[in-house]
């Protein structure tokens, strides 16, 4: 009896196969590995588990985590607890999708190719852009790749990023920029949004691109018209906008503000929080940049009989053709999560995407109003989407600790990433939070914050 259920070869098979090859032991298969570097003995790994033991073991690990099934979460900052229609998991659990690879052989990959084509269309619709790729690793790497794309087109090395862009996205940008020798200039904030005077002063002929987030890291809606005018006053500079795609169900899409590249993360649309990944970056561009896009693109075409079909296209941009001259090194992306997002967007449909965005904005504003009524200071004083900043009057880490004891996962501690934000909490309120949960949160925080 075989010891391993994923290994079908029997001892007889192995023996017969070695015979055909003309060697007498599996040792001989590795005769080309020099003795000096051969691994002696057995790899010292954790002990192997049977299937029931494995499930028990993983369930025990999972139980050591506090999940948003049991706790009311007001934590956002780029990752959110949202409604995921049950059809999403049903579709991405199909082996035909999740056990396939990149659709190189189009004739037997039409399903995946068409699904990506639909994903590209949905992203274009949301962002108001003319083309979108098949996905990136996440929002942060999509943002960095957008800066690289811009640099490749303009040949300018100056990348301007607003301080109101997600701090981790900016950290990832810094890592990529260091490799490529780009100069990242961070423009400060004023009243929780990009300081327009500072932006104007920083933007000059050496500028490749300006990166802003809309709604920004603090949930606030950036003054896009003003920003666009500043950026495009410089002849070739690109406006790169990072957007929570869900917010675009309700907010004017960045394409309307003449953004050149729009990127972000599809996590709010059908993808679980998953401790930060896998999520799914999206990447959308204006028409003039289509041939510079990183990663895979699916295009419509016809077969010999004139039947409509889909293929990977414009591959002359990609690493497997262009090698060091490719627009990016990306190969595997996040295809299955792009599919999950597509299914979610399809399930929401025209009415649902708007309703979802509406519930987020209404609930967040209700929460802010309740905080205000209970005497907690709201720091955000401009229009916002589903996040806003409050002053806890005490270190947020302490407050969150006490909230947790009451079954609540509190908001993000802004002092971790921003100077001058001591005691400030970024609160996210999604459609998943009931009025009752919001009221309890406000009440609990009132009790804690005053001391």
């Amino acid at each position, binding site marked *: 009896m075989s010891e391993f259920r994923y290994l*079908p070869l029997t001892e007889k098979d192995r023996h017969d196969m070695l015979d055909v090859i003309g060697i007498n032991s599996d040792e001989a298969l590795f005769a080309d590995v020099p003795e000096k570097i051969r691994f002696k003995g057995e790899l010292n790994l954790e002990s192997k588990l049977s299937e029931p033991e494995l499930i028990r073991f*993983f369930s025990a690990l999972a139980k050591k985590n506090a999940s948003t099934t049991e706790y009311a979460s007001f934590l956002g900052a780029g990752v959110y607890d949202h409604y995921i229609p049950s059809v999403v998991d049903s579709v991405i659990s199909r082996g035909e999708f*999740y056990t396939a690879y990149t659709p190189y052989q189009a004739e037997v990959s039409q399903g995946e190719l068409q699904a990506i084509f639909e994903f590209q269309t949905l992203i274009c619709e949301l962002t108001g852009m003319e083309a979108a790729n098949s996905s990136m*690793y996440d929002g*942060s790497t999509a943002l960095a790749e957008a800066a690289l794309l811009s640099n490749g087109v303009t040949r300018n090395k100056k990348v301007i990023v607003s301080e109101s862009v997600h701090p981790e996205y900016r950290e990832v940008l810094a890592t990529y920029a260091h490799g490529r020798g780009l100069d990242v200039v961070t423009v400060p904030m004023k009243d929780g949004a990009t300081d327009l005077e500072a932006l104007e002063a920083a933007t000059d002929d050496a500028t490749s691109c300006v990166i802003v987030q809309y709604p920004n890291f603090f949930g606030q809606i950036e003054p896009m018209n003003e920003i666009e005018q500043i950026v495009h006053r410089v002849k070739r500079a690109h406006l790169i906008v990072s957007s929570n795609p869900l917010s675009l169900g309700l907010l004017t899409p960045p394409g309307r503000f003449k953004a050149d590249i729009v990127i972000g993360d599809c996590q709010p649309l059908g993808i679980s929080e998953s*401790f930060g*990944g896998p999520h799914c970056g999206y990447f959308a561009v204006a028409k003039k940049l289509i041939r510079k896009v990183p990663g895979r693109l699916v295009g419509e075409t016809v077969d010999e009989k004139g039947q409509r079909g889909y293929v990977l296209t414009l591959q002359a941009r990609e690493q497997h053709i262009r090698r*060091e001259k490719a627009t990016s090194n990306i190969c595997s992306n996040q295809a299955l999560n792009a*599919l999950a997002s597509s299914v979610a967007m399809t399930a929401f*449909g025209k009415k649902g995407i708007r309703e979802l965005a509406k519930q987020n904005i209404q609930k967040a504003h209700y929460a802010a109003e309740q905080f205000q009524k209970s005497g907690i200071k709201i720091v955000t004083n401009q229009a916002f989407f589903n996040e806003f900043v409050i002053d806890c009057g005490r270190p947020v880490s302490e407050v969150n600790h006490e909230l947790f004891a009451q079954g609540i996962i509190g908001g993000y501690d802004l002092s971790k990433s921003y100077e001058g934000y001591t005691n400030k909490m970024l609160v996210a309120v999604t459609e998943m939070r009931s009025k009752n949960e919001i009221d309890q949160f406000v009440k609990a925080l009132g009790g804690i914050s005053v001391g």
Partner: protein
Amino acid sequence: MDNQNQPLIFERSREGRVAFSLPELDVPEKPLTELVGEAYLRQDEPHFPEVSELELIRHYTALSRRNFGVDNGFYPLGSCTMKYNPKVNEQVARLDGLTKIHPYQDEQTVQGALELLYRLQENLQEITGMDAVTLQPAAGAHGEWTGLMIIRAYHESRADFKRTKVIVPDTAHGTNPASAAVAGFEAVTVKSNENGLVDLDDLRRVADETTAALMLTNPNTLGLFETQIQDIAEIIHEAGGKVYYDGANMNAIMGVTRPGDMGYDVVHLNLHKTFTGPHGGGGPGSGPVGVKADLASFLPKPLIMKRENGSFGLDFDRPQSIGRVKAFYGNFGINVRAYAYIRTMGGKGLFQVSKDAVLNANYMLKRLSGYFETPFKQLCKHEFVLSGSRQKKLGVRTLDMAKRLLDFGYYPPTIYFPLLVDEALMIEPTETESKETLDAFIDHLIEIAKEAESAPEKVQEAPHQTVIGRLDETRAARHPVLRYVKE
């Protein structure tokens, strides 16, 4: 497969249908114009489809029937390690306690997740022979770039700024030179010799004080073991460079030898290849990077650590770190699956995996060698490369044979890679395929080789059985239609 022409989801849309269900808004509703300025309120509705839930399911089920995965049949796509994706991995990865957790939760509330990652790090260190591992990179190419940024940081920390070049073999995967470019290096090619291995004389020629690193898979992309790997490492080390292991081919050597023991300094793994993370139609993957001790301080931050009191945490205090390569902590869900696989197989099991993978490949190579040109005569490792040059003379290209395989219900091998081999067919069976499956595939491929002689048009005009014929790629590229627009 479904032979019906498949409408786009947008073409199925009828106004008024829905496939979602949200509770009624339970807070007082305010006019949106009060909350958001008029200029920021979307005027048009996005053209999203309107379908019922069943229509949605029928649509995607129909699409799935027009797609081929490992669950459908044999998928010997070389260099991609299309092995079975265990179902229990999917089950445990979907536990609420592993999916419905936020990356910014207090460490004390995610101890299980951190413990899991820490344990995975430890196991991967043992498998690769490395001293420290980061789980942050999202895929193989992302790992390559991360590894090269670590090497860059190492040289810079020594004020050694002249190292601008990364050496890659002429057989390398395209991501290697592309990753070098993204990391700001110039890619330099080293030639292969007649045995398909790195030409040591050429390596000595290109390795110098400008060499930052050599990137090399072992077994290499031809499926051949670089027997002189220790000499190769020595040449690079003597030139002051670092040796980078592309883990795409790790499936051949688990428990046989380790990158750390061969002289490599940095390694990335493709957890979606060797460690059964599903390929997902092109991701998400996971590309952890392991390094030797002298490079550990440059790893991305945060790392997962175990504290003296036994609890687990995130270590941000890493002043020499290259920084972040991705938001949060990597593709956690894929790392969960890889860890489940390692715990299912154990050390002995992973050794058997590599032995069976290599046995399967050599068996196929032997049986096919009479019918196709075999450019290299030695034993292969987990994959091998055939040349279709004999068939090409008959007017049958490797692409034609690949398309003909579709008719027999197979996903074709990787073709035209590595570029070094004329009309290449790169076959990787993996260890999860049975001898019967291999025999049937071999018989079909031999049949195709015979058809190339007796009825070449049958191969040239393939596929005959798929839902769609060969597609016009030139048209797709010349007049790109990248999205649906309602007429």
